[in-house]
């Protein structure tokens, strides 16, 4: 087909011409847009939209997260596959369109949202998504109040997510209300749009592992439409400590050795309680603890007349105190 030689999507070309026709563009601008958008793919072929170096760069941000080895491996697999697809296409081999809708399973605070955000950016830079933004929604954003309202709300959210990632947190709650609940309508609408706009947005459904398994079982069409499953395991104690240290480092605080020991003890206790069924929110627990520590640090030094730079940065064991949110 002649379009192939231009390497410009038909819709884009038609858009440019329509813009020209309605008087929004000068002719040379229209030609530039037609030629200009035919040029980037050519350049891309040279610089390769997914060169190996670029991929490594993209992966470094993900690699900088603590733990999550399994997740990192899977993401690496996905991007290696995308890269291979592209190389195969260059050689004229057959390539399948890639479906990238994903399920994120894991306990609270295990980095589901963070990873989704990073991946959205990676997909954009790899040329799979136009914008690469993340739209975070929950049940209340999708489910309406009366019949017909749900599809409308869901469609609106999907429209917002076009060109990016639609991240549905606690997605299992869509199926929890029983047969009369409008949540089912939201699921049906979502599934329909996922098929229709396969290349334009990526849906990520996230939630706790057990609930998500149950959710995927309730609707027979769901598991096959989310081919990628990522399981976010809980952090162990040393990973929690590592997260705390990085968090402190980013805000220009340091943990004293005693504080670190105490943090280790607190984390071990919290995890032990979590094993008995008490809620534990992993990295979020660490963040809350650290933010509280910074406040206590400020109170402790409130009365001091002169505070050295070192003191201002140093969090002591006494600052670390559990309390408040789990």
């Amino acid at each position, binding site marked *: 087909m002649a379009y192939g030689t*231009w390497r410009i999507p038909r819709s884009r070309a038609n858009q440019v011409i329509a813009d020209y026709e309605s*008087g929004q*563009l000068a002719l040379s601008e229209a030609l530039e847009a037609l030629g200009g958008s035919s040029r980037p793919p050519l350049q891309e072929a040279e610089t390769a939209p997914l060169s190996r170096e670029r991929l490594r760069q993209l992966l470094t941000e993900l690699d900088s997260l603590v733990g999550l080895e399994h997740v990192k491996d899977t993401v690496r697999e996905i991007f290696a596959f995308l890269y291979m697809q592209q190389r195969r296409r260059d050689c004229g081999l057959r390539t399948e369109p890639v479906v990238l809708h994903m399920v994120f399973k894991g306990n609270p605070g295990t980095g589901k949202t963070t990873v989704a955000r990073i991946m959205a950016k990676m997909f954009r830079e790899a040329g799979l998504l136009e914008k690469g933004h993340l739209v975070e929604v929950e049940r209340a954003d999708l489910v309406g109040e009366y019949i017909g309202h749900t599809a409308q709300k869901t469609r609106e959210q999907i429209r917002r997510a076009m060109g990016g990632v639609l991240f549905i947190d606690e997605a299992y709650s869509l199926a929890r209300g029983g047969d009369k609940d409008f949540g089912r309508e939201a699921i049906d609408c979502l599934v329909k749009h996922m098929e229709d706009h396969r290349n334009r947005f990526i849906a990520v459904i996230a939630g706790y592992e057990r609930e998500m398994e149950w959710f995927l079982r309730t609707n027979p069409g769901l598991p096959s439409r989310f081919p990628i499953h990522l399981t976010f395991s809980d952090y162990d104690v040393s990973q929690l400590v590592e997260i705390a240290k990085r968090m402190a480092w980013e805000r220009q605080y340091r943990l004293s050795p005693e504080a670190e020991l105490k943090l280790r003890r607190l984390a071990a206790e919290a995890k032990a309680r979590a094993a008995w069924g008490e809620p534990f929110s992993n990295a979020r627990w660490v963040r809350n603890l650290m933010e509280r520590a910074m406040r206590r640090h400020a109170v402790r030094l409130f009365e001091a007349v002169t505070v050295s730079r070192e003191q201002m940065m140093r969090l002591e064991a006494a600052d670390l105190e559990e309390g408040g949110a789990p």
Partner: protein
Amino acid sequence: MKRSLVMGRSNAGKTLFCIQFARYLGVRDAEWLVERTDGTLERQRISLDTARQLWSGDGQRTRGLHSLMIELPRGKGVRSLWLTDTTGLREDIDESPDLRADMAQTLRAMLESQVILHVVDASAVGRALAEAGRDGSPTGAWGDLDEQLAAFGMAHAGYVLLANKMDLPEARAGLAYLRKRLDKRRVLPVSARCGTGFREVKQHVWRMA
């Protein structure tokens, strides 16, 4: 059906080129297929001579796409393709809406054509060069429009630039300028009036047909 599109600025000599080139290729009973912007198709039987008198000349504007069926021998058979004359392109944005529609139609056809023959008035380029002095650029005869079209065309296998009006004295300088500016192999000197240079154009069209 494959299509070879003749495009370029207004008054570059597109219509005359089409008529003469068709004649060169042995078209006698000229049945023109005219595609209007409103989507209507019309068949007009106008002989090449009459068409030349009617459509070509100063101040004439081609409206819509005028196509002639041309036949090129290839192997044992004959390949036929449309030779399409288009509305002349102009740079300015404040054109009347129907002219705009005509040009948009040209652009659409451009995306679907296998061969693009970009006609440039080489004599006007030469004249503008002479006026602009040594280092000047030939504004008015070779502008952004042609620049973009050429840049666009370089990615397309079927694109050639026809430096027209080579029978005029200034055209030589214009041709030299165009050859320097673009890929030399993609610039073919022709004269639509005298019918020179058509052999190369035919070879190009034949290759792409």
